[in-house]
């Protein structure tokens, strides 16, 4: 924990997570201990951000209902994030 995460919160899979406005979303999730953001659709292995620059798509999550790369977004108050960490019957 870096001590930066104190001025807002984002909702991640239904849980409020403290974050700092302007941090990359990928960074804020990492700092909150949420390392795994999705499971590989083929192998079901856990995956986490890898390249951090929008190339690998390993950090893709749903943000306010749209699929986005967490490394390309910055934290805004009230963001609603849904990860693919756990098994989801719909997938």
């Amino acid at each position, binding site marked *: 924990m870096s001590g930066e995460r104190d001025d807002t919160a984002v909702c991640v899979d239904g849980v409020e997570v403290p974050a*700092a406005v302007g941090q990359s979303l990928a960074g804020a999730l*990492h700092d909150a201990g949420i390392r795994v953001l999705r499971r590989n659709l083929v192998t079901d292995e856990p995956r986490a951000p890898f*390249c951090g620059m929008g190339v690998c*798509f*390993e950090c*893709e999550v749903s943000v306010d209902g749209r699929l986005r790369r967490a490394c390309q977004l910055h934290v805004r108050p009230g963001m609603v994030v849904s990860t693919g960490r756990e098994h989801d019957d719909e997938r």
Partner: protein
Amino acid sequence: MSVDGDPRPAGAIERCDVAVVGGGPAGLSAALHLARLGAYVILLDEAEELGGQYFKRRQGSVLAKHGDFRPEGTSLISAVRASGVRCWTECSVWGVGEDERTLLVAGPEDEPRSVSARAVLVATGGYERSIPFSGWQLPGVVTPGYALHLATCDRIPVGQRAVVAGTGPFLLPVSCALLDVGVEVAAVVEVNRPYRPSLRVAAALAHPARLAEFASYRAVLARRKVPLLQGWQVVEANGSGALERVRIESVGGREAGREYDVDALAVAYGFRPATELVRLLGARCEVRQGDLFPRTDGRGRTTAEGVYVAGESAGIAGVHVARLRGEVTAASIAADLGLPGAAEPARATLRRLRRGEAFSAVTADLYPVPDSLISGLCDGTVICRCEGVTAGQIRAADAVGWNDRNSVKGATRAGMGPCQGRECAPAVAALCGASGSTEPFPARMPIKPVPIRVAMGESAEEVS
């Protein structure tokens, strides 16, 4: 609103003199010069703010608490915005129209847009040269660039204890940045031996400023007692659900392997140019060491008329060269479009560009990627991380006798996931036995994944 100006309805074609794709050092520099010559410029970038990777901005409370990071980036961006360049951020160029020139764009709300320009400047930068190894898909394994951005822009440690590995001068500042946010760096693992006296190192003596920069990083590592191993490579990352242990071996196997208990591994072997858009626009590239480099006249002109390239997408050479290439390419575009005020680049600019490119050639010589990194991979190693395709599957498909790499791609699905082969294509090519004579994979639309309705040219409103 991140689309500057008075955007036409989604779907209408926006016309301009020059479309610059990529708002990093090269794109910013070129856009600024062209706008000052009176060109109507649209600058597109897929991120929320301009700057690219090198000039990535601190924002919000991190900016308030820690101050600006690389303030020269902030001034360059301000100058561009003040110059009349129309900046379209959060805009992804995903394809090219039938005329091979019109750029197809997904806007901030995924709405379809298109830009038709008299000249297109591709300044899409580069990305890290990742080479697959056993366990590289484990959470906790990242690129040095990501570890650096976490440390510098977000002020977040990538882990408690890390190994930094691969090759290139970039590993040194990354290691220092990690130390700065409290990460224990267990070792820097460099596959080459660039920090020992040799004739090739002597060539770098002609560039004292850069040598002084590297010496300062090495002094920090020495003071913090971080071992800098040369001639060693990462062979395996292990852990249950996330990284717990990294195994390294000496190149040639002369010494016994070593293991480190770490929760982070930052590894890459330098950078490769992002050439998808250049190729989609019909410009030719050549293959060197398995990576693609656009052919240019040395001043940003590609083999396709009206298509230009600058910055790292023209060849990896660092931020100073990127800015100079932006400036020089802007002069080429201005001359070709017949803009009033078009002039030859200043002699001093061309001289600095030549020197910078010479230094990057020295660097490339010092930090090559050994072929054995890929040829020595075990069959079980995942190569295409998106589709979970292993080295063994690719070798088996190649042994069937397919005529080309696309058939291997079709047979195994390697390169068909969301990253579209950006991470694995050179490794797939190397495993197929091709020594890099042809393109790893051709560039195909969409070069970035977009919702299907964007590709169909419909806006969100029309669909919902």
